[in-house]
Every structure is written in structure tokens, then in C-alpha cells.
């Protein structure tokens, strides 16, 4: 496979002082320079920030490469260099083929111009030749569904029409290489769904895609390979699932496994939690759970003395921190005070219940102290894992691949009668 993107030792340096002065007036800069000359003010420590440091990678034709990392890890800087909006400080990149990015949707649209004029202007900005625009013009107009208003200034368009027209120009650019920054992509859910849909469509026709995202589940689902950036450095590069698992392991204070020493174990004189473990089904890397499969939350705790009836409880939260549900073990064995000893309790969260995304779990061993629950031992942000829908058509989302809202994604039983 031919290499279509080849980046060698890419570095990008930003100077913090540069940001400070960026919006200053000429007078401020001049008085600052004068003060420095006369020694009345020491040079503000211009701190260099390396947004990228010696980043090298190659992308073969047709590969879908995901770029993951925390905020400020350099993902967007990398994309800005690849789209040539900014230049690297050192290093070089060779790109073979036309590059498109969904960042540019609607860039350069002028409200006074008609739809037709804007198609030509926007097309030229995106790098299309007049002949290409002419060839695709009818398809673009049809896709956008604004045929009737094509000779009306776009300032009279509804925002929906505006976005549709803008998107259809970008969608017909047909780049060989597509760069997508999900974080920056604008628009509503519907629009983002279109972007993702378009991406899958392009990748199925063998286009090379570089996909920057926070949505680890989308990366896992769409990408063959992923690289992880950390403070501007590539810290992992490999199959997407492995890199994501590795990333999850580092980023979440919680992980898929926790073990405490006996004396550091959380809890009181009644109960202490010794270890926690997220049990996912085999075949998946740790930390990634198939949306259709059950996941077990295993909790090992020690009852130190037999005082009150206690029971294990979990609370499941989505990535925004919204509570998906609470659950406790209602088995009658917990109705009486449990004898001292070590207990291993596993809560099985059924498959087809949680929605995609990062799920975190809180665990506790409680007793009822109406109207409250008394927590004898509790771990907040105890475990976390990434739920992923592989999109094989048998989850609640069916064959649809776009965004599917909700804290939960249950697979319902549907009945139908035909008359």
C-alpha cells in the first residue's frame, strides 16, 4: 500500500508571550519594548510550549487512523498542520492526494451572495476547479434540497438550508484524504450524524481518513489503527482497540481493576472493600465492553464484625455524570448480619442496557438507616469502562450508525399486529 501521509519529526512551538501580546495595541507593545530597553521591566518569561514534539507517523492509503489524547495533547495542532492552517516549527509532512476536512464546511460563505455564487466560491476555496464544480453542481444542489432558492441570497435562507447547502459542497469535494476533528465540528446532532455517516461512506470506498476524537467508542468502531498523543508526543501507536485500552488505563483514575492493601482498604470498623474488578467478556480488550454483552462488577469485601445487616450496592453513571441507575443485592442472605469473613459479590449488568460511551461505577457496602442509606465502605469513581456498539445491526440501534441518545440503550421487545 502506498503511503499517503508521511509525517517526520513534526514539532510545533507556541510561545505563551505571543498569546499575551496577540490582542494588544501597538502602544502597549511599544511601551513594553521601551520599558524593557530602559531596564524598567524584565522580560516577561516567554514560556515555550511544545504543542507537538517529534511526531512521526505514516498512513497507508485506505487506512482509517484515529488520533486520541487528552485536551491539549496536540491533536488539534496536528490537524491544523495537516490542513496547512499553521506551519510546523520543525519537521515535514508529505501528503499525496487531495485533502478535505469537515472543518471547512461553509467556510467563506457570504450572506449577500446567492446559493449558486456561494457554491462556486466555496468550491474554489476548498480547492475545486471550475470544471469540477460545474460537473457536480446539480448533484450538490439536489443533495442540499434548496433547488428553489439557488438564486436567492443565502442571508434569506433558514439556518437548516444554509448548513445543508454548505455541507453538500464539502461532501462533494470527494477528497482522497479526509481529516476530521470531531471536537471542533460544529452543528447540531443531526449534522454530526451526517458527518459520521459521510465518513463511513468514504472509508468504505477506500479513502484514507484521519479522525481526531474524544469519542473513544467512535474511534474503536471506525478506526483500524490509532495513535495516542500525550503532551505533544506520540505515546502509543497500534491497533485501535489496544491503544484505546491502554489510554483508558492511564486516563481514568478509575480503571477496570483496583486492589487495596488490608490497612489502606476503604471502609470502617464494620466492612472494608478489598478489591474491585470489571469483568468483561472474552475477546474484548480490558476496558471495552460490547454493548450487547453483560458486564460484571466484582467486589471483594471483608466483614470485620457482625453488627448490622449489610449489602453490596452499585451506582452506574454515564460520561456526563448522570446516574443511569442504582442497584443493590436484595438476596435474603443479606437480611441478617453477615458473619465476619471475605465475600466476593458480582453484580451483572445485562447486555443491551447501557448506552455507548464511558461508563463509571461507584460501589458501596451499605445498610439501611431509613430514610438514608448508611455507607460503611464506599468507592466513588471506582471503575470505568468504555461501552461500544460494534454496529452489527442486532443492538437497539439496529443498522443505524449515527448518534443514539439516552443514558441507556435497552433492547426492547416489540410486538406488532398487521390488520
Amino acid at each position: 500500500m502506498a503511503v499517503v501521509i508521511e509525517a517526520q519529526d513534526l514539532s510545533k512551538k507556541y510561545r505563551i508571550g505571543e498569546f499575551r501580546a496577540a490582542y494588544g495595541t501597538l502602544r502597549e507593545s511599544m511601551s513594553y519594548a521601551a520599558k524593557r530597553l530602559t531596564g524598567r521591566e524584565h522580560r516577561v518569561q516567554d514560556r515555550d510550549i511544545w504543542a507537538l514534539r517529534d511526531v512521526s507517523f505514516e498512513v497507508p492509503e485506505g487506512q482509517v487512523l484515529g488520533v486520541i489524547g487528552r485536551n491539549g495533547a496536540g491533536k488539534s495542532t496536528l490537524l491544523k498542520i495537516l490542513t496547512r492552517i499553521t506551519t510546523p516549527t520543525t519537521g515535514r509532512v508529505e501528503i499525496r492526494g487531495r485533502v478535505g476536512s469537515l472543518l471547512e464546511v461553509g467556510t467563506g460563505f457570504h450572506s449577500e451572495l446567492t446559493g449558486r455564487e456561494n457554491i462556486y466560491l466555496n468550491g474554489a476555496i476548498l480547492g475545486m476547479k471550475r470544471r469540477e464544480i460545474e460537473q457536480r453542481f446539480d448533484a450538490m444542489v439536489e443533495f442540499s434540497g434548496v433547488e428553489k432558492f439557488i438564486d436567492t441570497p443565502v442571508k434569506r435562507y433558514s439556518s437548516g438550508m444554509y448548513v445543508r447547502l454548505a455541507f453538500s459542497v464539502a461532501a462533494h469535494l470527494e477528497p482522497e484524504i479526509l481529516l476530521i476533528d470531531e471536537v471542533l465540528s460544529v452543528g447540531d446532532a443531526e449534522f454530526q450524524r451526517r458527518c459520521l455517516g459521510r465518513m463511513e461512506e468514504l472509508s468504505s470506498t477506500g479513502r484514507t481518513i484521519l479522525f481526531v476524537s474524544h469519542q473513544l467508542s467512535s474511534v474503536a468502531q471506525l478506526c483500524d489503527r490509532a495513535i495516542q498523543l500525550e503532551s505533544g508526543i506520540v505515546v502509543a501507536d497500534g491497533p485501535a482497540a489496544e491503544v484505546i485500552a491502554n489510554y483508558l488505563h492511564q486516563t481514568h483514575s478509575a480503571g477496570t481493576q483496583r486492589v487495596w492493601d488490608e490497612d489502606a482498604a476503604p471502609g470502617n470498623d464494620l466492612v472494608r472493600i478489598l478489591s474491585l474488578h470489571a469483568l468483561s467478556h472474552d475477546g474484548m480488550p480490558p476496558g471495552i465492553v460490547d454493548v450487547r454483552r453483560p458486564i460484571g462488577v466484582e467486589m471483594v469485601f471483608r466483614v470485620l464484625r457482625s453488627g448490622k445487616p449489610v449489602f453490596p450496592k452499585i451506582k452506574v453513571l454515564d460520561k456526563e455524570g448522570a446516574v443511569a441507575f442504582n442497584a443493590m443485592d436484595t438476596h435474603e442472605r443479606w437480611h441478617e448480619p453477615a458473619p465476619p469473613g471475605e465475600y466476593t459479590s458480582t453484580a451483572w449488568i445485562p447486555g443491551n442496557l447501557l448506552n455507548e460511551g464511558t461508563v463509571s461505577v461507584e460501589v458501596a457496602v451499605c445498610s439501611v438507616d431509613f430514610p438514608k442509606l448508611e455507607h460503611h465502605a464506599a468507592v466513588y469513581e471506582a471503575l470505568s469502562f468504555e461501552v461500544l456498539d460494534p454496529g452489527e445491526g442486532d443492538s437497539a440501534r439496529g443498522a443505524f450508525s449515527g448518534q443514539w441518545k439516552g443514558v441507556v440503550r435497552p433492547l426492547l421487545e416489540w410486538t406488532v399486529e398487521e390488520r
Partner: protein
Amino acid sequence: MTETKIEIAESAAPKAPLDSELTTQAERLVVIRPAPRWPHLDVPELWHYRELLGRLVSRDVVVRYKQTFFGIAWAVLVPVFTAVVYVIVFGKFANFPAGDTPYPSLVIAGVLPMQYFASALTGSSMSLAANLQLVTKVYFPRALLPLASVIVPMIDFVVGLPVLLALMWYYDTWPGGAEVLFAPLFMGLAFVTALGLGFFFSAINVRYRDVRYMIPVFLQVLPLLSGVMYDVAAIPTKWQWILAFNPMTAVISGWRWAMLDASTPNPGQTALGVAVAAALFLGGLAVFRSSEPRFADSI
């Protein structure tokens, strides 16, 4: 900086059936590198982007007089109104020197290039800040923006030209001969001067919005220093040489000589104006190109 090479070579093999009719196009190899130490104008790249330049120009031309009552007629009304005021105030009240040329022709032949220069300078100085969305989102040679802004007012200039032709007919002052061929060259001098200053000010304006306030002041005094309302040849020689540092003086004297058969401009003074224009162009270009890599970061 980046460079764009067109490789007509090897396989532009159809990868997708989607645009099979378009796969004949050459495969592009783009090399992204750090900005070079020595700025230069990448002419082949500008040529590659010529269609975009055309689109930017036509956008500005179309938008320029949208939602105005008089529309493109403003391109005539503005110089005529200015010239009428000049003729009354400076010609009648103050009796400015006009040489052998009828005063109204002399004034309009100065006002038209000056009007062009003022629009070109204002437009190009604001061009980067006005196209912020483009600069932060899409790559194209940034020099296209000031360049387009210097081309756009040429349309107004051409539309205003019949006013001068009418006066030439009225006063029966016609070009002396082959020197009329120099007329476009003097406009070219105004173009280069405006572009050089436009490069400079647009780059500065990215960081210091002070430019917005400096330009109008500069443009208010410039007609007085360029001989728009008087014949430069009629003032003391010492002052002629001082004014000659201003390329617009050479533009206006030269334009009058070419179009109205006015007195031949001093070749030394014209050469000085050309030299200053060239220096402004190169200096402006150097400033523009060396700050270009930071436009998107600091705009």
C-alpha cells in the same frame, strides 16, 4: 511554508467509482515544511490558485454595491463629487497652479488614480482581518487576499474613466501620441505601491488593529502630497523632489502626461517614485511572508 507540486506522473488510478470521470486529474503532492527564513512570493503557487483569486475578486465586486440605490454609479459619483469640490475650492478660490492643462481635467486625472489607490490600500490593509474565517480554517496562499483587494477597485477605476474622457473631449485635450501607452504602466505603479503597502499593513493589522485608524488619516493628507489638485511641475524644484519620494506623485504626473499631454514629468523624480514603490513592495512582501505562518495563531 508549504509548497504544492503537481505530479502528472504515475497512477491516478481510480480508487473509488464515485468520481471516476475525474480521475484524470493529476495527483497532488503537498509538502508541508517550516516557514523558510527568506520570504519570497511563490508565483507558481499563486498561479495554481488563480481560480480562487478570480472568485475572491468577483465576490468583492458583486458584494461591493449590494443594497445600494445607485449601485455601480458610485464609481462615477465619488470621483465627480470630489473633483467638483476641488475645482471650486482649489481652482476658483485658491487659484492652484494648473500649467497648460484645463483645471477640471487636471483634477479628475488626479482624482481617479488617487481614488483607486485609496480603495486599494484600505481594502488590502483590512483584507486578512476581514477574512478571518478563511484564514483560520482553510489553507490557500494568504497573499491572495491583499492581491484580490487591490484588483477589485480597478473595476471602479475603469467605470470612472469615461468622466475623464468626457472632459478630454470637452476641452479637446488629447494625448500627444505614443505616450498614451504609458498610461497603464503608471496605473501599474499605483497597483504595486498599494499592494506593497497592503501586504505590510494587512500583516500588521493581524496583531495591531491600530491600522484601521491610521489609514484614513494617511489617506486624508495623501492627495495634498501627490499633486492631485495642482501641477507638481509648477511648484519650487526643491519641493518637487521631496514630493517625488511619494510614488503617487509619479503616478499622477505620469498619468496626466500620458492622457492629457501635460508637461513631461521629470525622469529623475519618476525614477525615484518607482524606486520607492519597488522598495515598499519588497519590504511589504517580506513583512507579510515572514509573519504569514503566524496569521492563524495570532489573528
